[in-house]
């Protein structure tokens, strides 16, 4: 191996500092959430305890955390499923040019760059002015899709740009119907990327704040609940909640990445060349 230039060490240090900058604050509140019962929002630690985690389970101390958590969970799963299905359909549609495709493409870009508060305000106004119930599972759900679908579709573009069409040709030449080709050839090859789309769909929804602000109605999702807490909770209980939420997110990310790894392993083990179709 050839010797590393000096710039490597400079850049590696910079990278390490960047990671510290990225994760340092999160690690700090993780440590501080184990404050003793007398401890405050900053160091020094006054003993260590699970006191603040215990507080999370007491209704009067923190409000409706578990209700909002279950709402966020359900909403995340709804958004995830819809994002995967709609993105795959949309991505497949865009493989061939069709009249009006560029209109949809520019709408997707607009959806991505439009300030979230506009979506929140607009969707909220439509629902409230037309008498529809403003609820996290209706208006909140739709508002979040405007944030997750662009990511889903752009990932599908990247996937299909690298997709080797000769696999489909081969299937068709052997007499597979259009649906059989999709079901037994295309979907298995792109399956690991679909897990990526699902990860985006779930986590972006689970953490979304601005687009849900005016569209969730009277029941808060978890980010809204946490934001409410920042204005009136001045104890480390908020750090405990932050630590738990972040740990949950890390868990979700780990599970998704693990599924991708297992899928890729399975594809190689079965000796098929599925997955090699991406060039």
């Amino acid at each position, binding site marked *: 191996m050839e010797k590393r230039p000096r710039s490597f060490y400079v850049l590696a240090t910079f990278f390490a500092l*960047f990671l510290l900058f*990225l994760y340092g604050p999160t690690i*700090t509140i993780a440590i501080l959430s184990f404050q003793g019962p007398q401890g405050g929002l900053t160091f020094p630690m006054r003993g260590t305890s699970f006191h603040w985690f215990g507080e999370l389970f007491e209704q009067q101390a923190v409000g409706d955390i578990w209700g909002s958590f279950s709402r966020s969970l359900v909403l995340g799963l709804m958004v995830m499923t819809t994002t995967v299905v709609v993105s795959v359909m949309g991505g497949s549609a865009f493989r061939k040019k069709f009249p009006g495709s560029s209109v949809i493409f520019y709408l997707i870009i607009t959806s991505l760059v439009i300030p979230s508060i506009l979506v929140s305000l607009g969707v909220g106004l439509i629902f409230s002015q037309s008498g529809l119930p403003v609820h996290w599972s209706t208006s909140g759900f*739709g508002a979040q899709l405007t944030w997750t679908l662009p990511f889903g579709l752009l990932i599908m573009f990247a996937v299909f740009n690298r997709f080797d069409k000769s696999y489909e040709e081969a299937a068709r030449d052997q007499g597979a119907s259009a649906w059989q080709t999709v079901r037994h050839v295309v979907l298995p090859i792109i399956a690991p990327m679909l897990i990526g789309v699902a990860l985006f769909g779930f986590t972006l929804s689970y953490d979304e704040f601005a687009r849900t602000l005016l569209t969730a109605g009277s029941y808060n999702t978890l980010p809204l609940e946490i934001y409410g807490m920042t204005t009136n909770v001045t104890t480390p209980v908020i750090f405990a909640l932050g630590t738990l939420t972040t740990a949950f997110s890390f868990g979700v990310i780990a599970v998704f990445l693990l599924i991708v790894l297992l899928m890729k392993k399975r594809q190689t083990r079965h000796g098929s060349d599925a997955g090699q179709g991406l060039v």
Partner: protein
Amino acid sequence: MTDLTVSNDTDRKEETRLQPGVSAKVRKPVSDAVSGWLMSLPMAGVLVFFLVLPIIMIVVVSFWGATEFSIYPAFVFDNYEFLLTSPVTYSVFLNTVKYALITWALTLGIGFTIAYFLAFHVRSLTWQIVLFLLCTIPFWTSNIIRMISWIPFLGRNGIANSALISLGVVDEPLDWLLFSDFSVILAFVHLYTLFMVVPIFNTMMRIDRSLIEAAYDAGASGFQTLTNVVLPLTKPGIMIGSIFVITLVMGDFITVRFMSGSQKANVGRLISNDIALLQYPSAAATAVILLITVLIVIATLLRFVDIRKEL
């Protein structure tokens, strides 16, 4: 190369292949259009109902009138007149642009450096993927929690102040670390740098390595290669990252509110304050102006890049 010839071959075959009972030449374009529409129907539906209609609604409501506790349909220019004649509007827009520009410059500098290190200095693909994932994981966690995380760092008794005092750099705690422009921009950089890293890294990975070698062989120094070869080829990634960062910062209201302790303002906060006071028409008018501003910026940036080619 073989892949290319194969797919060319099949394309040609497709045109001439006999499909029994179906006249390929006549049927195909029509069915392509129909299947394209059908497949993109769900996406188009969501976008029409939750993006296009809301924008139209905002434009409509921006001409409505409002009392202290209700809004009513009308066609008045009061909201715009008030907005465009108030000096507050201009200073707030200026402040928003200031946040966007400073954050853009910082995230670009940091993002480019990180992406450059990952793409050109990390040699094994596995390590590239691992380190890249480390950079992107925070994107999938809660922004609000990540903002809260700065409090123990920046407060009067926070880690930064204690460290500075014990090092003897300052005698008393610095007040401007939290609830200031400094903390707002710090949080922006913290939240959004990865929106620069990802697209820049993506374009850098596609740069043909032989071009770099050619530059060295022709006698270019490392720095010359960077500025004359890598930088121009990375431009599309830089543009995409810039679009993300600039629009996110310009449309933000929560970071500014939280990190400045409600002491600083940007356009997003102007809108959310109006919303809190139930002054929806006024909020809508501000939103329209903000949307126009953002779209102009994006249209300008999009002139430099073809997004669909870059994926």
